[in-house]
């Protein structure tokens, strides 16, 4: 029984002929913090826009909170429970912080005054300052406040920590961890900062050329993948590539580097039979997992 807050199947979208998404299957379970990774132009922002109804899919289905998003009414109902932080963190240029908060507050009957005050105090945002005069960090904090104080069950963010200094980044991550713990919110965000994703996410989805190439629990992925380094006397045998469980093979001189997945012990045995002079098995970092899956070969 899955309680996925976000569920897409076969989601496709093209812009004037060139495909941005080709059958994306994505599932974000309740209570998880899911990192959405991909190269620039792989389809991350398109996905977020589709989920929020700013774009309409060419094919495929979207379910939010278990409900099919097939009409404007269903989208509006979903948006009452979602908080969104856009990539450039743009808000209304003619308002100040206080007005922006009042404006947003008026639209959400479930607004949490206590959260609003908590984050106002935590972030120390100046109430009377005009929004365009805020630094990017403060705008991010304001958008986060607006997203969280509305009592959202699901938070969707496009590169929340881009352009922020390490101290502010840590503040934001801490706020997210807190939301997941106390508020039991589900968080789905796209990011280029692998280190942060490894720190805070328990799920990860990697998208490449419009499709999900990895989607699962991050710790499980780390358990299932291994890097195996084999050195040979001569050139590494070509039979290496056809061993079961080899996701990716790279050769440098007399060393072969395998990204292995699944029954790693069996694979190591089979690899040993090919007569390497040394065998080394190492854990795989998210960075390696990412790079090996998006190299676009």
């Amino acid at each position, binding site marked *: 029984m899955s309680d996925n807050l976000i569920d897409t199947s076969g989601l496709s979208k093209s812009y004037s002929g060139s495909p941005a998404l080709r059958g994306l299957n994505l599932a974000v379970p309740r209570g998880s913090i899911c990192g959405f990774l991909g190269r620039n132009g792989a389809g991350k922002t398109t996905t977020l826009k589709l989920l929020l109804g700013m774009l309409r899919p060419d094919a495929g289905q979207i379910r939010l909170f278990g409900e099919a998003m097939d009409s404007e009414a269903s989208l509006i109902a979903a948006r009452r429970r979602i908080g969104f932080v856009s990539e450039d963190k743009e808000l209304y240029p003619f308002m100040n912080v206080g007005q922006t908060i009042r404006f947003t507050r008026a639209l959400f009957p479930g607004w949490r005054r206590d959260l609003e005050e908590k984050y106002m105090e935590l972030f120390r945002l100046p109430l009377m300052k005009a929004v365009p005069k805020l630094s990017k960090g403060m705008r991010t904090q304001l958008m986060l406040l607006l997203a969280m104080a509305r009592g959202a069950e699901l938070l969707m963010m496009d590169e929340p920590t881009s352009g922020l200094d390490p101290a502010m980044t840590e503040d934001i991550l*801490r706020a997210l*961890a*807190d939301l*997941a713990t106390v508020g039991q919110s589900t968080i789905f965000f796209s990011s280029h900062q692998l280190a942060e994703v490894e*720190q805070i996410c328990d799920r990860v989805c990697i998208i490449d050329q419009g499709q999900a190439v990895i989607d699962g629990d991050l*710790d499980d992925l780390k*358990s299932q993948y291994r890097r195996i380094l084999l050195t040979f006397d001569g050139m590494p045998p070509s039979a290496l590539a056809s061993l079961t469980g080899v996701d990716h093979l790279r050769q440098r001189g007399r060393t072969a580097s395998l990204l292995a997945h699944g029954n790693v012990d069996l694979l*190591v045995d089979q690899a040993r039979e090919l007569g390497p002079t040394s065998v*080394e098995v190492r854990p795989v970092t998210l960075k*390696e997992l990412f790079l090996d899956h998006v190299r676009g070969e």
Partner: protein
Amino acid sequence: MNLRIHFSTGVPIYLQLMEQIKHAVETNAIRAGEQLPTIRKIAEELTMNPNTVARAYRELERDGIVEVRHGSGVFVAGQPSSANKTAEIRQAGEVLRSAIERGMALELSEAELRRVFEEELSRWQENVTPPRRQR
């Protein structure tokens, strides 16, 4: 309990947390019957995902190291003194220290020495597991 997680090494975080808690129990940093920090506390202190902390606690409970008392918290499982491996750990440390000194005397680099260690460890694991088809 002094917990430190390395988020970017590729080792699953819940496993790291489990190892550190086990180590704390073995070295008596935290004793049988004592309460472990709440999930919220650990997640807050280390700025990490609470689900991962929860998972570590679940696995530790499954392994019998801790027990979850609903409503009260998570406690170190009461076990007889067999859990205390402080002496053995100290001994192993001494053995390895002399091996490292001798390895360094052979003018191997730290990385090379580490590779040799891991190679030997895998070989040892292989010999210990049930018989398989030999080369």
